[in-house]
């Protein structure tokens, strides 16, 4: 375990070192992701002020859940980018995965450490700012449980999104190239999770409840944290399922990943 962590730390160090080689380009990358994604929110905020509320939620309330989701996705995209199916596909196609398999270290660890994208700090900062903006605009009825649940929710989201990336990477063992369709659940899922999810029509909600259980990691916890009425009339305990669902997803994703590796056949090139 300690050996594994040391190895991971070492791989990260190399990554960070190489990514800081072009400081100007690094700063531009950092700023661009923060500004562009930030503009998404500003555009939405400007639009919302025209309409006052969306599904009964004010701008501050939407910012609260939008910020948490954004922060978690940014963090995940930094830590789990080794499993980013956009970059993992070419690794499989070019046969580079075979090299990893030959090395005397845990394969999951190697993939995890193979990419650590520090420019995602931009997205994390942007998410944090939106979250703080949200907090400044709402009167929250804080309790100890709520204070503890916010960071736990964020960690759950990180693991949840990470699981989706692992599943995405695993599919490339068979497809050899990235499947754009997975973006529906990763990037699209994160977008849907940024809004009060009861506004979506039933079929979309069903997809994000039963197929990919995103709703347990944003809408239900937010209903509890913000003290909002729930037009979906779900039982109160579903607000607390986020960590359970996240662990379950991670377990499933890792099982699928191992299954994929067992059945992996090199592209041979």
């Amino acid at each position, binding site marked *: 375990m300690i050996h594994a962590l040391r190895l991971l730390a070492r791989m990260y160090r190399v990554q960070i070192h190489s990514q800081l080689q*072009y400081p100007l*380009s*690094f700063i*531009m*990358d950092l*700023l*661009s*992701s923060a*500004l*562009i994604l930030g*503009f*998404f929110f500003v*555009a*939405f905020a*400007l*639009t*919302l002020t*025209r*309409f006052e509320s*969306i*599904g009964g939620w004010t701008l501050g309330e939407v910012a609260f859940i939008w910020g948490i989701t954004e922060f978690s996705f940014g963090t995940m995209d930094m830590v789990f980018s080794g499993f980013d199916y956009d970059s993992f596909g070419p690794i499989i196609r070019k046969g580079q995965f075979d090299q990893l398999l030959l090395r005397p270290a845990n394969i999951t660890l190697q993939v995890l450490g193979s990419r650590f994208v520090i420019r995602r700090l931009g997205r994390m900062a942007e998410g944090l700012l939106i979250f703080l903006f949200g907090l400044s605009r709402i009167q929250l009825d804080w309790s100890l449980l709520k204070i503890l649940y916010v960071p736990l929710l964020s960690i759950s989201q990180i693991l949840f999104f990470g699981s989706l990336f692992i599943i995405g990477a695993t599919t490339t063992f068979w497809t050899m*190239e990235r*499947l*754009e*369709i997975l*973006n*529906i659940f990763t990037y*699209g899922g994160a*977008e*849907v999770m940024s*809004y009060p999810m009861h*506004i*979506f*029509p039933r079929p*979309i909600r069903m997809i994000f409840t039963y197929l990919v259980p995103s709703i347990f990691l944003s809408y239900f916890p937010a209903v509890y944290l913000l003290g909002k009425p729930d037009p979906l009339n779900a039982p109160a305990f579903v607000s607390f399922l986020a960590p359970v669902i996240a662990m379950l997803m991670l377990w499933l994703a890792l099982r699928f990943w191992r299954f994929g590796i067992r059945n992996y056949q090199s592209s041979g090139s």
Partner: protein
Amino acid sequence: MSPFLATIRTSFRRQLTYRAANISGLLTNLMFAFFRASVLIALFNEREAVNGLTVQGAVTYAGLTQTLIGYLSFFHWFDMMQTVYDGQIGADLLRPLNFFTYWLGIDIGRAFGALLIRSLPLFLVFALFYNITLPGSFLQWLAFILSIFFALLISFSWRFMVNLAAFWTPNALGIGRFVFGMSWTFSGFFLPLALFPRWLAQFARLTPFGAGVYIPIEIFLGLITGKELLQGILIQVFWIILLLLLDQWILSRGVRKLVIQGG
């Protein structure tokens, strides 16, 4: 057949062969169109119209932007840049047609291919799920078709210019990501510009990005007609001419400087 037309045809066919990628892209864009449409419907919440934009118009807007993504490919294109880095450009510069024209042909073929098997089916399926606004007259259709062709020319000459950065720096990818991101923000791809404060919307549609994405949609939805429509087309023509001239100028300077790598 002229080399230009042959390039278009080859590229068009190549685009059609990526069947799985096209279907996968289509479904993704369609789902995003549903997400955005749902958000807009929730925002309007019983309201009839805002700034001349009706709910139905806003929903159509969500479908149209997602339809145009594959065709315009406005914000993600590093193909030309790649050839500078891997040395393929050496052979491309020797082709029997101008380097810019060659890539223009490639892009027109790609765009028409995407239009046929990705964009059109997407919009048709989207129209099955929602009541949408369609152009009311033959002339309006004609103006729309003209303006999405102009939009492609703007999109291409803009992307070509961004890629030209590779002639000067080994890290044009970072610049590209930055600039493409910035252009995305002013295009109205995310939410209809009509819902923004007036000054911001007016500014955005004067940029090449607004001109490339938003003006065709305004024409389609009938938000601009008559003199305003003509003005919109003129803004597009202005950007095409300006970007084409800039491309030629930067390219001619870049080629003189270029050091071909690899081989």
